[in-house]
């Protein structure tokens, strides 16, 4: 028997749904990120709309179910953006639907610019959420500096709804850069690529993206280093950086902003890990120290990889059912795409050290005493 979906349209509705729930709830926004916990479906998509947008204060507040596309469109009108560049999982996971801002927050989704600007959690100023008893709770607010009380804002980012269901989120937004330039190096080994990206990221040229794809669109390795800002500044820094990286071979500077080979399309391709779309491999997302990336990719042998964040983020596509965690040095690996069979064998999230796992379990008990919010998803 399928349970009917719960689709609250207001925060108080949401609180009512949770307060009266007696069994597990499977919480989702747009349902595009591929996590399918057991339970009665509870969608926050009905809590939709931008509640406040002050471009001059770089602040935007929206209900959790607001489509990301709606927010990005509103920001574009004022030449602003979500600087953490949230990934769209639809092509990688083959999902449909509208990604919501609450989903982005619940999963702490960040893209290539994370290496310079910060993650979703770094731009999240405030949250409103409903805990597992139906209590409405707020934390943070809509100002950029706020140390009033404990920071539950960060805690909610990446908690995947297991401590509470988000009803409203507020963000610091940033001006959209006037110009973009991408330095392209070709033919590098992973080790050289990481060295080149490290050299770029330790330069004063404010690099806002550094990715390496061993099999680029034409099949050969490509390393992409992004610069953003005012036109003259980008031109200047691209020239400086080209010189700084000359030891890694010749490079090109890509400045096109429209069309299929533009810088915009190129970085969306990296952001959305499109190179792994449409296959039946398992896909892992591994966060490690950048200089550990070459050894990790060597150990993974036949697996396909893609490096972002200067090597600090390694996307891995490998044969279904292989647990790569034993090969990951200090850091963590999340199973982003997997067959149902793999999901039964391998946990989605990286197991934590026992004292932290205990803290996590105790926190869940305190915030969700009935154990109904995406139970089992995070341990």
């Amino acid at each position: 028997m399928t349970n009917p979906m719960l689709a609250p349209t207001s925060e108080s509705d949401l609180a009512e749904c949770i307060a009266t729930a007696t069994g597990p709830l499977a919480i989702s926004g747009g349902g595009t990120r591929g996590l399918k916990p057991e339970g009665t479906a509870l969608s926050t998509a009905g809590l939709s709309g931008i509640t406040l947008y002050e471009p001059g204060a770089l602040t935007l507040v929206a209900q959790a179910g607001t489509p990301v596309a709606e927010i990005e469109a509103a920001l574009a009108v004022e030449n602003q953006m979500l600087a953490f560049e949230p990934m769209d999982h639809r092509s990688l996971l083959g999902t449909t639907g509208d990604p919501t801002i609450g989903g982005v927050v619940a999963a702490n989704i960040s893209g290539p610019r994370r290496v310079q600007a910060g993650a979703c959690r770094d731009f999240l100023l405030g949250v409103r959420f409903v805990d597992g008893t139906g209590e409405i709770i707020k934390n943070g607010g809509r100002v950029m500096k706020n140390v009033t009380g404990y920071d539950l804002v960060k805690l909610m980012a990446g908690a995947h709804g297991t401590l509470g269901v988000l009803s409203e989120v507020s963000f610091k937004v940033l001006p959209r850069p006037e110009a973009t330039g991408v330095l392209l190096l070709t033919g590098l080994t992973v080790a050289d690529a990481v060295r080149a990206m490290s050299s770029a990221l330790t330069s004063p040229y404010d690099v806002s993206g550094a990715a390496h794809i061993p099999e680029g669109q034409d099949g050969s390795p490509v390393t992409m280093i992004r610069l953003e800002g005012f036109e003259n500044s980008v031109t200047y820094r691209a020239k400086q950086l080209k010189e700084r990286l000359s030891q890694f071979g010749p490079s090109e500077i890509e400045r096109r902003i429209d069309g299929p080979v533009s810088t915009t399309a190129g970085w969306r391709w990296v952001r959305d890990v499109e190179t792994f779309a449409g296959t039946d491999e398992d896909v892992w997302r591994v966060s490690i120290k950048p200089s550990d990336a070459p050894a990790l990719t060597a150990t993974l042998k036949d697996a396909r990889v893609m490096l972002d964040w200067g090597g600090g983020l390694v996307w891995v596509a490998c044969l279904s059912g292989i647990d790569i965690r034993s090969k990951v040095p200090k850091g963590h690996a999340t199973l982003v795409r997997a067959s149902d069979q793999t999901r039964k064998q391998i946990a989605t999230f990286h197991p934590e050290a026992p004292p932290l796992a205990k803290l996590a379990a105790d926190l869940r008990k305190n915030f969700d005493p009935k154990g109904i919010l995406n139970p089992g998803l995070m341990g």
Partner: protein
Amino acid sequence: MEMPRPSEHVLGKKTRFISRLKTILADEHVISDVMETRVYECDALAAYACQPLCVVLPGTTEEVSAVLKICHEEGVPVVPRGSGTSLAGGALPTADSVVLGVSRMSDVLETDYDNRVIRVQTGRTNLSVTGAVDEDGFFYAPDPSSQLACAIAGNIAMNSGGAHCLKYGVTTNNLLGVTMVMMDGTVVEIGGAHMDAGGYDWLGLICGSEGQLGVVTEATLRILPKPEGARPVLIGYSSAEIAGACVSDIIKAGVLPVAIEYMDKRVIEVVEDYAKAGYPDCEALLIVEVEGSPEEIDEQLGVIKQIARTHDPVELREAQDADEAARIWLGRKSAFGAMGQINDYMCLDGTIPVSALPYVLRRIGELSDEYGLDVGNVFHAGDGNMHPLILFDANKPGDLETCEAMGAEILKLCVEAGGCLTGEHGVGIEKRELMTVQFNTADLEAQMKVKDVFDPAWLLNPAKVFPLSNSSDRRDTIRPAA
């Protein structure tokens, strides 16, 4: 400010307890002589002081763990302390507490430029983190104004900010990993040189928890390559409204300065007398600083100056060289010292939406008239973090109380305007009882439930952050009976 009654039970076993601590630490690192513990009786919120039971100065994570284990067994509260520069009473002891200072632990453990991180012991001062990497062209971004003295431990506890956080963020945005000792002595490693958490964001939760969840002994911090250069421009306006509109327009134009600082007429006057920085005589003064190569700086300042001119400034001055840049910053950097020369003052720290700046400044002026105390405003305008300085006379009976009452009104005003009680100093004891202005019972209860998980006996940094009436049930039922 009311503090909970010290536990007679704890006070009664002082001698035995101290001798137990001395089984782990060298005698000179367990301080109980009243003349020597006096140094630790208060922090930079010097209006409040209390002698602790004793002070311990462990030298390693293992020693911190052993000390906490004993305190946990004995039910003795612990007040963690970095350098004691808290402006909110975050390190104020209670009479039945042990002050645990991390000042002996100040080593750099690892510098890793390739991965852009540094690992330090948390007793290290903020400025000396940058000092360790400066020659190689790097810096640690958060720069609270006490950076010469304040410790990374305190920066993490309070999630400290600084003048440059408009671009670089505050401590929580630059913290990648910690070694933390829990109240029962368990040592946990969280994060590292990699980015973001795999499970819950423990780092985000710990940063800014005011030493109430654990004692952080080591930290992995993000370091950044230094920009090629930086240059400020000084802009004077005839009203706060116009200055506020200018700030908003600069931000909207897509320039992201590293700092936008604001000073009002009262502060300008005092600073001029004190530092002779050559500031114009005007109602509102902005210092806007941008970074980059000389050409990039020219480009950004060009945009800023153009915007500034549309608002009809009374003064617009761009630094032509390093000396002029230093002179522009001189007044701002000496503002707190200069105000301290003429008066006692209380420094507030509320944050407001930038759009509410003119309204809040006008209301602060009205409150100043109402309470009969002078106020100077100097703050980080780019992010709305206000620092009203209320001037009072500590020797005049009743003046401190009037000042505190007025401070509370200003903080309520900040919350009412859509902001918060504290942007970078923390709650400590100072704003503890005002928490109910910003949070309802359910909001506070959620935060206290986090504390319950990390420190079930509520022994770490007692009587801070939460209003005493909200936390009394937990403290009363959990603390061992006499």
